[in-house]
Structures are given as structure tokens and as C-alpha cells.
């Protein structure tokens, strides 16, 4: 019951702030539509460049989606109330990230798979990239939330600087996944690898983030 209420609240807050959830999705669409215009068009080149652009743009979009994710609740005092009410802060962080993923990460993954269909004309690679995008958006969301929680009151530039080194290994794995999809080898190994990363950080990071937020409130 309690969890349902929290989840409902987060959904309500996110949906009412249209800019916070629709903005990143629109920017993602903009990048995916705009980048073919910058390439001298032969369809072969396009499909070569598609995956790197896709991965970088989901990284960027997730950065936008988490910008100031805890700032509003920090500034209006909701976090203090929450801390006093003896509910678990890490649970709240987990649910908040989950809600963001549901409303931003999942649509972007769907759109990414859809655009892949346009770029590569290949349904099977779209089906392969979709789960990878679902996992990757969640991982990026969590990592950027971590950076944002550290630089809570100090702006997003610092948060990005902090988070960037943590995201690079994930990008390397995604790059390997890209070749795995193209040549259709070892695809599941890399998928399991990023899934393993996700399964570690999905519960560990909310706990750490909640401690960081407590430090900020002191």
C-alpha cells in the first residue's frame, strides 16, 4: 500500500511536469531524425554510424532526464519530511528512478528499436537492440542519479563530470554489443554482462544515493 502510494506520487509529479518527461523523449527523436542529415547519404554509411549515435544519444538524453531529479524535493523540503516519517529513503529513491525509467527509458528504448528498423531495415537486429536499450537506459539513469545526488545543489555540470568516468565502461560494453549484433556472435554474453552490471547497481546505488541525500540534508 505504502509502496503503491509512493509510486503513484512519483508518477503524478513526473506527469504533471511535462517538460521533465516529454522533453528528453522529444530531444531523442530530434537527434535520431537529425543525424542522417549530417551524413553524406549512402544507406551503408548510415547503418555504420547508427549504433554509436544511438548509444551516445541515450546517454545524453538520460543525462537530461535526471537533471535536477532530487533538486525539487530537496528545495521544497519534501526530503526532510520524508526523512522524519521513518520511511525508507532508499526505497523512495529506487521507486523514483524506476518511475523515470518507466516514463522515459522505456519509450526511448521502443523508439530506438523503431529507428533501428529505419536505419538497418532489419527486424531481428531491432529485436536484439531493444532489451539492450532497456537495460542501458536503466543503468545510465542510475549512474546519473548518483552524480546528481552528489552535486545536488551545485548544478549539473559538476554532476556530469562526476558521472562521466562511471559511464565510460558501460559505453565500451555497448560498443562491443554493437559489433556482436552486426556479426551476430556473442550477443547474449554481452547482454548478460550489462544485465549483471544492472542487477548489482539497481539495489546498491539507491542505498548509497539515500545516504548521500541524508548527508546533504545535514
Amino acid at each position, binding site marked *: 500500500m505504502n509502496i503503491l502510494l509512493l509510486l503513484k506520487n512519483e508518477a*503524478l*509529479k513526473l506527469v504533471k*511536469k511535462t517538460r521533465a518527461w516529454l522533453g528528453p523523449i522529444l530531444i531523442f527523436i530530434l537527434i535520431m531524425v537529425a543525424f542522417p542529415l549530417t551524413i553524406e547519404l549512402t544507406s551503408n554509411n548510415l547503418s555504420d554510424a547508427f549504433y554509436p549515435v544511438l548509444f551516445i544519444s541515450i546517454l545524453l538524453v538520460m543525462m537530461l532526464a535526471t537533471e535536477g531529479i532530487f533538486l525539487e524535493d530537496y528545495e*521544497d*523540503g519534501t526530503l526532510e519530511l520524508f526523512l522524519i516519517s521513518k520511511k525508507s529513503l532508499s526505497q523512495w529513491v529506487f521507486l523514483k528512478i524506476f518511475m523515470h525509467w518507466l516514463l522515459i527509458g522505456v519509450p526511448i528504448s521502443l523508439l530506438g528499436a523503431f529507428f533501428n528498423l529505419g536505419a538497418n531495415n532489419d527486424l531481428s537486429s531491432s529485436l536484439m537492440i531493444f532489451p539492450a536499450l532497456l537495460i542501458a537506459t536503466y543503468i545510465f539513469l542510475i549512474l546519473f542519479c548518483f552524480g546528481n545526488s552528489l552535486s545536488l545543489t551545485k548544478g549539473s555540470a559538476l554532476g556530469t563530470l562526476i558521472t562521466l568516468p562511471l559511464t565510460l565502461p558501460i559505453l565500451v560494453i555497448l560498443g562491443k554489443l554493437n559489433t556482436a549484433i552486426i556479426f551476430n556472435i556473442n550477443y547474449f554474453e554481452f547482454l548478460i554482462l550489462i544485465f549483471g552490471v544492472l542487477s548489482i547497481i539497481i539495489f546498491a546505488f539507491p542505498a548509497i544515493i539515500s545516504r548521500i541525500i541524508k548527508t546533504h*540534508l545535514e
Partner: protein
Amino acid sequence: MESSYLIEANNLAYKINEVKLFTNFSFSLKAGEALHIKGSNGSGKSTLIRILCGITPSSKGKVYKKDELVFSYLGHKNALKTYLSVRDNISLLGLSDHEGLESLLSLLDLSEKLDVIVANLSFGQQKKVALLRIFLTGADLILLDEPFVGLDSNSHDLLCKFLEKKLHAGSGLIYTSHIPTGIRSKDITLD
């Protein structure tokens, strides 16, 4: 340590970057009592209330609370979502079908504002919505940081009366205010 006390503080001290804000602060509060914390600006009133809430850890000393004490706190920030209506803000805490809601709303003169977006309310009205949420939680101990700022004299009197009624009903109250309130309370001055 005695259970007759709601909250007890022992030799609290707080320092920031090795500079002392206050030292040796002790008090105890029973049910039905009020504590008024006075002090000049920057003397650490807000910090003290936050320490009592358990948000900020004290540098020295300890706060003892009664077992399973339910308390609520309202600081300088209202914890209201300005882009949501008053009703949504109340339901964020899961209080929308609380039985005392109707009477409290009419007491605080907010009955007609229930579906108004909070951003369209005045500062004083927002404060009253925040106070309303605090009172709805039914806490045994209420901690308020400058609750009278921004309220008109009518609302001020109403709030004082309401707080006194709460005290009679057996809850504790700790508040800071630089305006005299008329609530019968113990005074403590921070220097």
C-alpha cells in the same frame, strides 16, 4: 531517560567547520507542554530544531525521544508541490480521506481552495496548507520553525488557539518565533 518525557536533550552542542554555534543545551519536555526557542538571527534556532528532529547530527550530546514517538516538523520550506492542487498535495501524504480534514479546512478558511493549484495561493495560504498537513498527521510532538511568519493577525490567533487546544489534548510543542505568541510555554534563549 524517564518515559514520562516526550523528548529530552542532554548537553547538545553544534559546530560547523570547527566554529561553535551553541554549546550545553539541555531541556526536557512532557506531554502537554510547549517550548519556545528564542535567539537572535544566526544563533542556531533552526539548526537546533533540525537536531531535535534527527535530520542534522549534533556534534556533542544526545537527544532522547520516547519510544515510538510520532512527531512532525515544519521548517522554512513548506514541502508543497507548487504545480499540484491543494487536494493533490494532501493526497501525496496519503491523508486525503482523513476524518479531521473537513473541520480543519473550514477552521483554516481553506474549504474553497481545495482544487486550486498551490502556485496560485498567497504565501500565507500556502503556509496554512502546510500547517494543515502537519496537523492531519496526528503527531504527539509538533516542531515548528517560525510558523507565524507570513500569517495575518486573524490566522495568527486561530493558529495559537489551535495549538493550545492540541496542548490540552496532550501533545507536545516546540517552536521558534520572534513574535510573542500568547501560547503558555517554557522559554529558552540561545546566545
